[in-house]
């Protein structure tokens, strides 16, 4: 019996790809034949050895196929035509309106992804989501029996030696305000830049804004942000681009506060990463963000740019407030680390896995081991 995963894209620093790798690690530990399948055109060069081409995918009736769904792509058709039992993991689809004018082709794919969402969910054996927010979206569409399997977080990816060059570059007297995430319109990074303009010009000129994340997803939006930073005369806005795990650990290390102005998120993993790194987090209350925060850090709604600048100032200078924020975040991380991920997964897969596997996952099934060895990682 094999438990394979099908993805629309497979990239470094991507939350869905990260989740797929975590699931594969667990499934391999349990002894299943398990691989990640993806269209080679959408795979990061560094991850080519970690997955297999979509064209190679085949399945028997007693196999399980997990499909991570967040956009319309050929991978969904491959998943739907699979002979295996089908489980869809819904990671949310960004509303296409955010991309209108910034990337028409991507907006069209997002619209297509959302328009076929209900039909896709009705053709599968089980529907999982990574947050209650995503589950509520599906229920509103009339999809029944939605189960929540919160996004997996592996703190080991951040518990590494941070990139020394980044530490050396940004460990100075300036206060570092950090944002981590793909540079895409639904993140509303322009709101953060405008707030930073007030913070830097009127409150504390000894400050910088670090924007870390891939700028290839929406280059036109990225160009707009750079233009905005120029308009506001902000040389201290640093667009750092994509960061490796060591680089990411370094940015969290030098950060004094993490701010997320995003208006649409299915979950938002960087918030958890910042909390793990003991960086005070300020996030807009939107989408799945309250679930990722889970009562920790600071959440806001309805602030304009000057008010957000003031809130950032408080989170940087008020020691009592900082203490309260950090204590709540540590509590959140304690809860997160105590999570029994494997037990949760076992419960969700109980209907399809052999009873021996459910009992303790000690008996590795032999079928599919070949495929596993071929991809040979972990």
């Amino acid at each position, binding site marked *: 019996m094999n438990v394979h995963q099908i993805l629309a894209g497979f990239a470094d620093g991507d939350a869905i790809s990260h989740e797929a790798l975590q699931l594969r690690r667990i499934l391999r530990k349990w002894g299943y034949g398990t691989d990640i399948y993806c269209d080679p055109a959408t795979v990061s060069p560094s991850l080519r050895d970690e997955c297999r081409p979509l064209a190679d995918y085949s399945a028997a009736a007693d196999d399980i196929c997990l499909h991570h769904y967040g956009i319309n792509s050929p991978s969904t058709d491959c998943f739907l035509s699979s002979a295996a039992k089908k489980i869809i993991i819904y990671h949310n689809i960004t509303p296409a309106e955010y991309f*209108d*004018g910034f990337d028409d082709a991507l907006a069209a794919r997002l619209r297509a992804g959302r328009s076929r969402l209900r039909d896709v969910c009705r053709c599968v054996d089980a529907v999982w989501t990574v947050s209650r927010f995503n589950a509520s979206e599906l229920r509103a569409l009339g999809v029944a029996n939605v189960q929540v399997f919160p996004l997996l977080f592996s703190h080991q990816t951040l518990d590494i030696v941070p990139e020394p060059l980044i530490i050396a570059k940004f460990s100075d007297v300036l206060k570092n305000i950090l944002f981590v995430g793909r540079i895409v319109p639904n993140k509303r990074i322009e709101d953060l830049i405008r707030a930073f303009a*007030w913070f830097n*010009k009127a409150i504390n000129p000894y400050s910088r804004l670090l924007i870390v994340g891939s700028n290839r997803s929406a280059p036109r939006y990225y160009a707009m942000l750079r*233009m*905005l930073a120029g308009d506001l005369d902000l040389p201290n806005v640093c667009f750092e681009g994509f960061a490796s795990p060591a680089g990411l650990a370094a940015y969290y290390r030098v950060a004094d506060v993490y701010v997320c102005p995003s208006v649409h998120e299915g979950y938002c993993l960087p918030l958890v990463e910042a909390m793990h790194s003991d960086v005070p987090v300020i996030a807009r*209350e939107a989408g799945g963000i309250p679930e990722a925060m889970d009562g920790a850090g600071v959440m806001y*709604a*309805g602030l304009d740019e*000057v008010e957000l600048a003031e809130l950032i100032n408080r989170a940087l200078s008020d020691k009592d407030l900082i203490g309260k924020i950090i204590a709540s975040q540590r509590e959140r991380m304690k809860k997160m680390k105590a999570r029994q991920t494997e037990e949760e997964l076992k419960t969700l897969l109980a209907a399809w896995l052999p009873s021996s596997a459910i009992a303790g996952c000690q008996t590795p099934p032999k079928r599919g081991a070949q495929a596993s060895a071929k991809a040979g990682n972990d």
Partner: protein
Amino acid sequence: MLTFTFFGIVCGELYFCGHYMKITVAGQDCTEELGGEIRRKAASLKKLAGRAAPPEISVEIGALALQKASSDADYLDHFVRLLRYRDAFDTYDFDIPRKPGPFGAMMAGIKSFFWKLLRYQHDRIAFRQNLINGLFTSAVEFEMAERKKTDDELDRRLAKAEALLKKLVDERAAK
């Protein structure tokens, strides 16, 4: 419902002149205490900031005008239009941040002196760079104009060919 001159609390949510706000810290609603204070400070900052406030740019030519683009092509039109306003940089004086105290004043004075000393060289470099930037912007505009001319010509010929085809089909159908 509590109502103050400017602030109002309705169902636990803070409003200011009809503007909604909410702040939670460690899961507790701090809208009233923290939110009210932040709003007051922000309001006074807006009044007092003066020269320290971020530059104000007309909505028509500000970067955020790009958000109005309805398609990729529309974005490009907006972008090149906005680029024309930004293809040069100036060497005007600028605010030098200074720390409090005599040491801060001395450092600011030194930085100011060096800026005055080096400005002439900066003017020369700025002149050359702006010349290149301006020529590049013109090149992009010429390229776009040429492409539009070609597209218009192709559209015209295509329309002509379609009309001819329709006429032939109609004639064949009539026979």
